[in-house]
């Protein structure tokens, strides 16, 4: 239980830190984005919205920093992240609400696929060292050294421009209305294949290398030798004794690497103009849409925290030592 309490405290503190960081970021930025927006909007912006933006950016000069901080939290609890400049006058929260499922779908599925495939391949080549499968290692090293987005560019060049297999961008056929019908769903799947494959290809090598190294380390543990001495089947020793232990650090490293991976996959969305949160962030950056940027950052951080919690649960499920008190 102590494991979960400790982790719970950690998540609360991290969430608090992310929100606080988000609060201070715009206050450290030069210029006054809100005034310029108000001027640009030509009086179409409601006083309420102006007020909300002022809270967000700390422009309400009458308030002390602490008062600003508390009213910022108050706004957050009401789900108010301000108005987007780029998609004016849509609230930031609705913009994010629309884009989040796309990211969770694409990045989530692709990452899980990549972890499972990479761990499996890493298990095999880590177990049987000195076979031809070791040739995977230099390839994996190369792949892990290349930025995700460059893979995206190459994938588009090869499979969308040179050979017209897949669409080069967007999440679905333009003109379709999102709905739960086959036409739309198949279009989504069709558009998702290339970005998903690119994410898998560019992130899988990290899992292969990590699992391979852990397999090499765990293979020399006594309990693996004991398992061999017991005359167990090769498969049983590899899976149930070696891989079963080697996967534990793989899970903690998954949780920690998630920040890196999500960062990389967000850029992938930008390359593919995929309607997820990464692309929204990109649009926000190009339009200097600060409230939207902050909202994206906050939501991405919280999503990673949730993924971390899930990794914790999986870890605790797999390692009896964490489940024990003490």
């Amino acid at each position, binding site marked *: 239980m102590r494991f979960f309490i400790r982790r719970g405290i950690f998540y609360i503190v991290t969430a608090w830190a992310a929100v606080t960081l988000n609060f201070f970021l715009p206050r450290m930025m030069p210029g006054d984005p809100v005034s310029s927006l108000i001027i640009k909007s030509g009086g179409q912006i409601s006083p309420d919205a102006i007020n909300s933006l002022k809270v967000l950016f700390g422009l309400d000069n009458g308030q002390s920093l602490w008062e600003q901080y508390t009213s910022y939290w108050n706004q957050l609890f009401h789900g108010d992240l301000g108005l987007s400049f780029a998609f004016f006058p849509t609230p930031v929260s609705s913009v994010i609400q629309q884009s989040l499922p796309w990211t969770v779908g694409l990045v989530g599925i692709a990452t899980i696929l990549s972890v499972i495939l990479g761990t499996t391949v890493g298990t095999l080549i880590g177990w049987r060292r000195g076979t031809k499968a070791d040739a995977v290692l230099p390839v994996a090293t190369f792949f892990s050294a290349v930025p995700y987005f460059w893979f995206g560019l190459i994938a588009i060049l090869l499979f969308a421009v040179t050979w017209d297999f897949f669409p080069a961008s967007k999440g679905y056929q333009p003109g379709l209305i999102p709905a739960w019908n086959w036409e739309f769903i198949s279009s989504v799947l069709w558009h998702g294949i290339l970005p998903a494959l690119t994410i898998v290809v560019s992130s899988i090598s990290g899992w292969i290398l990590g699992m391979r190294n852990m397999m090499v380390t765990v293979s020399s543990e006594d309990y693996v030798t*004991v*398992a061999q001495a*017991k*005359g167990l*089947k090769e498969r049983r020793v590899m899976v*149930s004794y070696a891989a079963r*232990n080697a996967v534990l650090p793989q899970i903690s490293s998954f949780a920690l690497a998630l920040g890196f991976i999500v960062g990389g996959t967000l850029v992938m969305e930008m390359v593919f103009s995929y309607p997820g949160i990464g692309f929204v962030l990109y649009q926000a950056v190009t339009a200097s849409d600060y409230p939207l940027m902050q909202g994206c950052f906050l939501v991405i951080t919280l999503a990673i925290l949730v993924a971390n919690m899930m990794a914790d649960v999986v870890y605790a499920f797999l390692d009896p*030592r964490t489940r*024990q008190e003490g």
Partner: protein
Amino acid sequence: MTTTAPALTNATLQAADPILEIKNLSVDYGFGDDPTHVLQDVSLTLNRGEVLGLAGESGCGKSTLAYGATRLLPPPGVIRGGEVIFTGRDGVKTDILTLNDKDLRTARWRDFAIVFQGAMNSLNPVHRVGTQLIDAIKAHGKTATKQEARDRAAYVLEMVGINADRLKAYPHQLSGGMRQRVMIAMALVLEPELLIMDEPTTALDVVMQRQILEEITDLRDRLGFSVIFITHDVSLLVEVADRIAIMYAGEIVEAADAKDAYLRPRHPYTRGLLNSFPPLRGPRRELQGIPGSPPDMAKLPSGCRFADRCPFVMDRCRTEDPALSRTALKMSEPERLVACHLHDGKASEVPAELAIQAPQK
């Protein structure tokens, strides 16, 4: 080496009922340009029903011998030659080193089981004790049903004095002594004919050591398996072993009946080793230890490997490697072999402490 050695080997084969014969086993660490020859042509015979103690300082190759013979030596160990003949109850002889993977898997644990050094790491931390016991049973198809396998696991656990409800425990929930007992139970789960125990009590406190030793002796009397017992503690061996082989720097330097070796050591190293440990019972002796440290296996000296530390070193020792053979003492010691120039009959005088007379029967 003198030509008497093969004759002795043959005599051995005729005289007794061997269960395991290690012949000329050679093991290297590393491969390629610069391997270390940790074992060179080591031979050892274990008779049925016997407890053979294998002793020596850490790094002398005693564990390497045991793991090499069972092909469990981890990389970069490589077996460079030799035979390991296992003779089953039915009299069928198999060379463990020539078995294919499948047959080796079948033979393992059924014919010979091993209690590893350090039970802390020998149990898989993520599986329950029961699972790991049943794993061994299932792998050899000894039991048809799940229930029978579980009953068998519970039975062996109770046999080593652990309550059967501990089948559900994870290794980290057990104490060191309990884990060691679990490992012994696990080794006995298929009733093997041969048990190799590698420092089974080293990590335990003295009280626990004694309990476990008594249990092993007791179980051997009940189940009748043969044991190779590896330890660095010679005085411990006298308690459990019928016969003792002393190893130094990858070679066997003395082999004798346990009591003989203990009371009347012939090799200077055996004597030094005995003086390094307080006896578990009996009169106290002055502890002396052996000055210096074993040679680097990668750079072995010519001649006797113990020469640099030997209090009785002679010029010959620096150039000639002594062979393991009978002593030239004027008493009959058929059970004893020593690799020392002092005992080959050419030395002018054997030091008194290495020539203690056995009491006349």
